[in-house]
């Protein structure tokens, strides 16, 4: 009984979602020991995973501000928040003024960092592993990873990266145990934009950031 699938930690991980993974995948989840060349999609995810581990290991002793300081610069480097913002808002994006677009990108970046800093607040033997990389189409790569918890539960984190104009590979979507962050964001944000307008969307994200910073969500 008590049967339910868990979107769990996955959600926990991005501040979005979470679940469990089949043994089939777990069997393939062998940690990569070879360093990827710099500026490769794999290197970007390795950088992200390393920062996440550092954030978790810093834990409660570092406080929210300390964890934010570790993870925020890495997210700014590895995530393409501008592209994520455009994709998340879909056709609504072009209806915003340039100033609103800039504001949304900035708040989205801060919200993402706050989510990570707020939720990755402890380390209990978890580890990441990159299990595969694959070109999905020219200029777009998939990096497939696992996140193994101390309990043995294995979660999948699959990243979609695009190569930017300056040849850097940056994340534009994360799929955690089959749940697409971009898809969730698009459904929610577009709905709120249409029903309550841009100020309500910004206000919601800022409230979440404030809750993380104040410890209300810890």
């Amino acid at each position, binding site marked *: *009984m*008590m*049967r*339910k*699938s*868990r*979107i*769990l930690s996955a*959600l926990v991980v991005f*501040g*979005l*979602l*979470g*679940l*469990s*993974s*089949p*043994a*089939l*995948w777990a*069997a393939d989840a062998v940690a990569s020991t070879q360093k990827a060349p710099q500026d490769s999609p794999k290197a970007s995810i390795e950088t992200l995973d390393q920062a996440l581990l550092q954030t978790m290991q810093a834990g409660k002793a570092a406080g929210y501000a300390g964890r934010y300081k570790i993870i*925020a610069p890495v*997210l*700014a480097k590895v995530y393409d928040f*501008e592209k994520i*913002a*455009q*994709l998340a808002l879909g056709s609504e994006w*072009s209806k915003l*003024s*340039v100033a609103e*677009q*800039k504001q949304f*990108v*900035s708040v989205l*970046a801060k919200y993402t*960092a706050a989510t990570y800093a707020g939720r990755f607040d402890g380390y209990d033997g978890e580890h990441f592993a990159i299990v595969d990389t694959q070109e*999905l189409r020219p200029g777009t790569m*998939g990096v*497939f990873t696992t996140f*193994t918890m101390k309990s*043995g539960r*294995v979660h*999948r984190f*699959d990243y979609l990266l695009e190569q930017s104009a300056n040849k850097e590979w940056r994340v534009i*979507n994360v*799929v955690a*145990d*089959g*749940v*697409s962050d971009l*898809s*969730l964001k698009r*459904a*929610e944000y*577009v*709905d*709120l934009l249409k029903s309550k307008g841009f100020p309500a969307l910004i206000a919601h994200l800022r409230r*979440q950031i404030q*809750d993380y910073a104040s410890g209300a969500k810890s």
Partner: protein
Amino acid sequence: MSLGRAALALGFAGILCLSGCATVQGPNGQIGSNDPLEPINKPIFNANLWLFRNVLGPINTGYVAVTPKFFRTSVSNVFANADMPYVFVNDFLQGRVQPGMSGLSRFLVNTIFGLGGIFDVANKLDLPKQSNNFGVTLGVWGVPQGPYLVLPFYGPSSLRNLPGLALAIYTAPPYYFPSSNAQWAWSGMGIINTGHVDAPQVRMVEDAVNPYVFARNAWEQHEQFLIDGGKVNKSQLLEGLDLPPATAATDSAATTP
């Protein structure tokens, strides 16, 4: 026995499933594409959230305050182990022999050497925890999801998942307990454990811009992920990339946190 009682307990605990199960958005991203019962689902969803916030949440707070971590971990291990028959039976029904054997082995190892599941010995033998349910099995067999449902005291589900609730009851150990007192004790502890284990997920749902849409979307995507054997396909990863291009560009400096 108490099929009804077990069902109630199962359902009650499923409040947490709010975050763990499936979702709202269709494969192409349309909101509410498979949710014709939203006018009924939404009030039930809000009632479930209210119950969690005002009943299970406070119970969990008390549980954490009065029990040591190793106790809570052991309780969680026991219930996870008790779930395993339902998991591996569905693996076999789906024709997935390797995961099924892994789940069966995990159950036997933890039951025998882990003292009924108190200790997660199987984890050290590379027999990881998995998720599965009969709704997934029916999905593998080609049965369409049907309308999205939010069940009272349970959370996200679908027409296809309803038969699985009965199967879950029959494969759970308490159904075979000789004493109804033991069944009640098990069910009560199960509710507390579920409230504890799923609290972070529920919090995430509550934090969403639109919790109802978030929970539905996540549930449906995850259910499809399980049906696909725990693999994400290319189209899902690429989904949304072909939206109309933006007409205005932003300053990249805005990405600085």
